[in-house]
């Protein structure tokens, strides 16, 4: 079946993606975090001891599944193309920025939509920043920003990341090399093989329908084209139904799982993510899918996300979730600390330099 034939089939692909997320949420993934590319890369980086935040360490099979699912479907449908050479180090930096922005908000654009579907009003505030970031990115594109074209390279290049993911998965099952959180979000997860199958299906469907959270806003701004938004709509509707059915829908700013109500940092964090995603040619989910279908440039962006996650927790850049007062501890307002706030501002400055430097103007 052609999932991109028309808006109905695109919406169906969104419904399928939403259904996978709902199953993963039901099977044990953290609340409002059925599938989050930034959080799950961060957890995996923690499991590999790239950072020491004890509550967010776990090799997430979903990440492995998305990359390998996109790889397998691309090979089967003869769409696998090994490409590289489009400003890899700039992409690495953009990957890091996407992670820093995501962890200031506490979620990638996919989780932003999942949080919106659970009634988290902070995610609606963050959406303002995300749309503004994508809009700024499109202005850079209109001014001639380009990372340059990618070239076809040796087929092996595009297989490195999927193979590395398989090795990571096998090692996570057969050795004690990696650590797993005993409490906190890292300790909450769906059973390994259900998470892997969910990831494989998610990656394969996302590859076929080209779902991208930054791309959908970009297409609306540049062409008034709503095709990609249809997919996001499908995910949103399914998750709203799931959250209402399971009693997880809570329309408020407070009391939301793994979230904070520091509006300015929710906006600026997602502003950086939207801006960086347009410059990099796709949101974190899209980068994983592109890496799976052979783009070494997107694989480098993935590495940027990975290292960025380690930076966030090693240097105190990540936001802290709000928490109500308990008998033992006072209430926590949450949000990024001073290090994180400086980092988000610095990231936005760097994005303007990358996107609007005169050397990037064509001719």
């Amino acid at each position: 079946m052609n999932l991109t034939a028309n808006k109905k089939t695109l919406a169906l692909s969104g419904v399928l993606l939403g259904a996978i997320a709902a199953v993963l949420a039901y099977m044990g993934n953290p609340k409002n975090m059925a599938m989050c590319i930034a959080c799950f890369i961060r957890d995996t980086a923690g499991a590999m001891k790239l950072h020491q935040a004890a509550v967010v360490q776990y090799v997430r099979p979903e990440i492995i599944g998305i990359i390998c699912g996109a790889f397998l479907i691309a090979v089967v449908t003869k769409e696998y193309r090994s490409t590289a050479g489009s400003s890899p180090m700039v992409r690495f930096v953009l990957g890091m920025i996407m992670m820093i922005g995501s962890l200031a908000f506490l979620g990638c654009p996919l989780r932003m939509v999942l949080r919106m579907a659970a009634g988290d009003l902070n995610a609606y505030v963050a959406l303002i920043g995300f749309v503004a970031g994508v809009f700024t990115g499109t202005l850079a594109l209109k001014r001639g920003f380009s990372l340059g074209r990618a070239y076809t390279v040796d087929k092996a290049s595009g297989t490195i990341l999927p193979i590395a993911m398989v090795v990571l998965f096998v090692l996570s099952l057969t050795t004690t090399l990696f650590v797993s959180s005993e409490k906190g979000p890292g300790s909450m997860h769906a059973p390994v093989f259900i998470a892997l199958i969910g990831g494989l299906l998610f990656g394969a469907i996302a590859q076929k329908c080209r779902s991208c959270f930054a791309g959908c806003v970009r297409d609306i701004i540049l062409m008034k084209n709503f095709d990609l938004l249809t997919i996001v709509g499908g995910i949103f509707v399914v998750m709203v139904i799931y959250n209402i059915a399971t009693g997880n829908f809570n329309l408020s700013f407070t009391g939301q799982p793994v979230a904070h109500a520091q509006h300015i940092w929710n906006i600026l964090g997602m502003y950086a993510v939207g801006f960086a995603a347009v410059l990099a040619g796709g949101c974190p989910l899209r980068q994983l899918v592109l890496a799976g279908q052979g783009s070494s440039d997107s694989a480098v962006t993935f590495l940027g996300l990975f290292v960025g996650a380690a930076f966030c927790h090693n240097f105190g850049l990540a936001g802290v979730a709000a928490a109500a007062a308990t008998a033992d501890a006072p209430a926590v307002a949450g949000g990024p600390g001073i290090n994180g706030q400086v980092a988000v501002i610095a990231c936005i400055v760097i994005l303007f330099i990358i996107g609007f430097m005169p050397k990037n103007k064509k001719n």
Partner: protein
Amino acid sequence: MRQKEWKLIITFHTTSDAIAFEKACKETGRSGRMIPVPRELSAGCGLAWCTVPADRADMETFLKECSIECEDMAELLY
């Protein structure tokens, strides 16, 4: 539902090339519009220029005039 018609689709190596070509076409009054790259042509998610097949020769010449290299030029029902 919109009736599909045969169209000439021009894809580019970069998004900025597509945007630059759109700007040049509009400035010179050429017909056509920017669209997302049709899924039939690519698994990528870039932008493409869509016009009528009769414009092929003009488009080939104009691309050279603009010094913009296209990735592909294909006719399909869109």
